[in-house]
């Protein structure tokens, strides 16, 4: 995924040459504040000063919940205004800029007034902006992280023919992030017009000379981002109940980290605590159904926790284990139907992008059917996530995982270093997976491949518990082979499930009279195509299993993960992680 994003960024650099060629703007931060008309009069030279035009505007800054645009060095600005006076239609201008303020792409769309801003990449008009955003944003929603209330004052400097040669503008206002408002430091801009750069240089030169201001090196929006970051540190949950952006700290939660010599008991308590934090931080996003990734990450944290409980039971207090295993199993089960429908919807969106507009139109009823089914499944999920059982589960987990909870260091195994305990289990699961895989031939039932896939998921999660304790260059080759094998097994199973689901959806739609023959035929053709892809993935299994299971890999694996004889760790307090 990161590779894709990097590729997109490289593409951006190439594209930037082709984007709208606005001449460079020069900005000053006036100190103390000076009236724009006075600046214009002083700096105009032979040009005429036109009357100032004042306006105010609301700019929305958007990013994905995990701030993918910011990480990619980009920002998305949306500005909405009525199509005309008293018009019931609004024009939304969207502009993608890099962090230096340089335009990358822009687009505009018309919506009925008071419509929300576009939320997903697919909601944007086709064109450069969508092309640039798609590989970075993927399936994530675009959320508002800040709103700017800007006051603009603009003065045109005209030549003898009345032609504008330079524009001077002053921007001030405030930024609102998470309900907290901050003043924006005023800026004076000198905007050249293409072909008249010399006039702008002369005006900027006079401002430097007469007012003693140096040109700002940083774009105004970069400064605003810093204000936004400072405000974002305020937990949104204390301000209102809207889902907040996921911070860097939240991102780290999904990759549990512990120190090398941490005793296994307290380390697992810490890891399970981090995973529970992830579950809780994603819950509001799941409830609000912001995008499919909230539920996906919610479920990954559940599966990781279940793996810890199943595979490392010896290092957990017995009482905690029994209760938590049952509740995690329940939570995994109740979130399944909604996630399955999310996956089907994402697959349909990808399919629609790959076919002709006519074929896409034919598949529309399937999209409607999936969205209706998803809405029903989501309503049921909401009941579960707001249930007494869920709240009791969280309370119970927190009690078991509390710093002063007992039973996390009361046996020898719980006092062993985490790397040794998990390493031993990783090796055991790897050996089992190799044995299981070796029994799979070309005619083996799909069930065996599915079991192997589950085993490999457990192996992957176990490795992730301690991956930061192992040198990257040693773990990377193995992880690469594991991921390739998981991908092939995932394709075999997911494509089979998707094919079956398509047939089921077709029947449901036909029974409900929601599909015409064209749609049913298109669904059938798509299912056939998926079946072919599944068969091709099945053939690839032997090819990708062999390097995963060969002697060389097994040897390297043992050298990386096998617990080495270590002196027993001294008894440490349960809070030491």
């Amino acid at each position: 995924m990161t590779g894709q994003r990097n590729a997109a960024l490289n593409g951006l650099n190439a594209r930037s040459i082709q984007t709208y060629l606005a001449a460079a703007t020069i900005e000053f931060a006036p100190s103390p504040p000076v009236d724009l008309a006075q600046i214009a009069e002083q700096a105009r030279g032979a040009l005429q000063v036109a009357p100032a035009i004042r306006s105010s505007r609301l700019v929305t800054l958007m990013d994905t919940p995990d701030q993918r645009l910011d990480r990619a060095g980009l920002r998305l600005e949306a500005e909405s205004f009525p199509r005309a006076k008293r018009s019931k239609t609004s024009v939304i201008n969207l502009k993608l800029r890099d962090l230096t303020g340089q335009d990358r792409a822009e687009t505009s769309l018309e919506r009925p007034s008071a419509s929300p801003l576009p939320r997903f990449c697919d909601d944007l008009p086709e064109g450069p902006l969508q092309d640039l955003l798609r590989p970075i944003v993927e399936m994530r929603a675009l959320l508002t992280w800040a709103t700017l209330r800007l006051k603009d004052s603009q003065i045109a400097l005209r030549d003898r023919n009345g032609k504008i040669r330079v524009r001077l503008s002053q921007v001030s206002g405030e930024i609102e992030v998470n309900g907290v408002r901050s003043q924006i430091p005023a800026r004076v801009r000198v905007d050249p017009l293409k072909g008249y750069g010399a006039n702008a240089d002369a005006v900027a030169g006079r401002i430097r000379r007469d007012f003693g201001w140096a040109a700002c090196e940083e774009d105004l929006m970069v400064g605003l981002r810093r204000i936004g970051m400072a405000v974002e540190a305020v937990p949104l949950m204390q301000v209102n109940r809207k889902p907040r952006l996921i911070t860097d700290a939240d991102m780290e939660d999904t990759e549990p980290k512990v120190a090398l010599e941490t005793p296994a008991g307290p380390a697992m308590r810490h890891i399970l605590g981090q995973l529970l934090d992830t579950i809780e931080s994603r819950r509001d996003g799941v409830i609000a159904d912001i995008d499919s990734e909230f539920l996906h990450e919610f479920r990954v944290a559940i599966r990781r926790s279940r793996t810890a409980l199943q595979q490392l039971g010896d290092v957990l207090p017995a009482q905690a284990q029994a209760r938590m295993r049952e509740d995690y199993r329940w939570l995994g089960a109740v979130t399944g139907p909604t996630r399955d429908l999310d996956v089907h919807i994402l697959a349909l969106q990808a399919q629609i992008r790959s076919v002709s507009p006519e074929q896409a139109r034919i598949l529309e009823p399937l999209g409607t059917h999936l969205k209706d089914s998803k809405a029903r499944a989501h309503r049921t999920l909401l009941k579960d996530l707001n249930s007494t059982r869920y709240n009791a589960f969280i309370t119970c987990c927190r009690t078991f995982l509390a710093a002063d909870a007992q039973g996390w260091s009361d046996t020898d195994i719980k006092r062993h270093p985490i790397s040794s305990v998990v390493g031993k289990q990783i090796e055991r699961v790897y050996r089992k997976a190799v044995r299981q895989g070796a029994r799979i031939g070309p005619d083996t039932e799909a069930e065996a491949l599915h079991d192997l896939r589950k085993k490999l998921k457990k192996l992957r999660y176990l490795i992730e518990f301690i991956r930061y304790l192992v040198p990257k260059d040693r773990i990377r080759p193995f992880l690469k082979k594991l991921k390739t094998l998981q991908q092939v097994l995932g394709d075999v199973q997911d494509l089979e499930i998707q094919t079956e689901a398509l047939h089921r959806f077709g029947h449901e739609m036909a029974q409900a009279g929601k599909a015409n023959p064209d749609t049913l035929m298109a669904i059938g053709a798509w299912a056939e195509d998926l079946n072919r892809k599944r068969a091709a993935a099945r053939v690839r299994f032997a090819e990708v299993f062999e390097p995963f299971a060969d002697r060389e890999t097994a040897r390297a694996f043992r050298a990386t993960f096998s617990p080495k004889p270590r002196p027993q760790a001294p008894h440490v307090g349960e809070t030491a992680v």
Partner: protein
Amino acid sequence: MKILASYNIKGGVGKTATAVNLAHVAAAQGARVLVVDLDPQGAASFYFRVKPKIKGGGKGLVTGKHDLEDLIKGTDHDRLDLIPADFSFRNLDLLLDAEKKSEKRLRKLLRPLSGTYDICMLDCPPSVSLVSEAVFHAADALLVPLIPTTLSIRTYEQLVAFRKDEKLKDLKLLPFFSMVDRRKAMHREIVEGFPDRHPEVLSTQIPYASVVERMGVERAPLGAFAPRTAAAAAYETLWADVRKRVG
């Protein structure tokens, strides 16, 4: 980038008003627009208050000696730029004739701008010449303003025949009526009868209006100084029609 050309063999039919007003409407709606003033009279440049002179003149333009980017001037309107006319464009035919594959020269010159602009609007001089041939090969569509008079209709028929003879099948013809005076019976008759022979005609008509003549006084597109007039509204509708046809 879509290349549109405002063209008619006949003069005084509203070609420049069409190019300037449609370009302004498109830019106001968010498109990045470049107007290229190919007419040595430089009326489009005049409307945008830009001096009708370019570095290296017509020769620099046609030979590619001067980078096209360097010839572009920003207008007073957001997202709307102009390559101004030059009096040397009166010899553009001769200059093109000296080049290899002269009819494809303009398209080649404009190609590097395709990532910078969404719309390129060519304001053409009235005539059938090497310049117009180069325009026909460069443009995706010709916007053909027609005054509802017999002579004007005749010139359109000539254009249709020329397109057929030159096998310019990919070039869309988008005729529409301009300077329509509904008080005149002949205007009404021609406007009503024309679609039977030429169903490609756009449904929007630009009415005869003195405010269009005021563009020369205000030196600005209608949308900038008279946005609420019937003529300005007609250009907005016309642009919507053109977008539907051109995509």
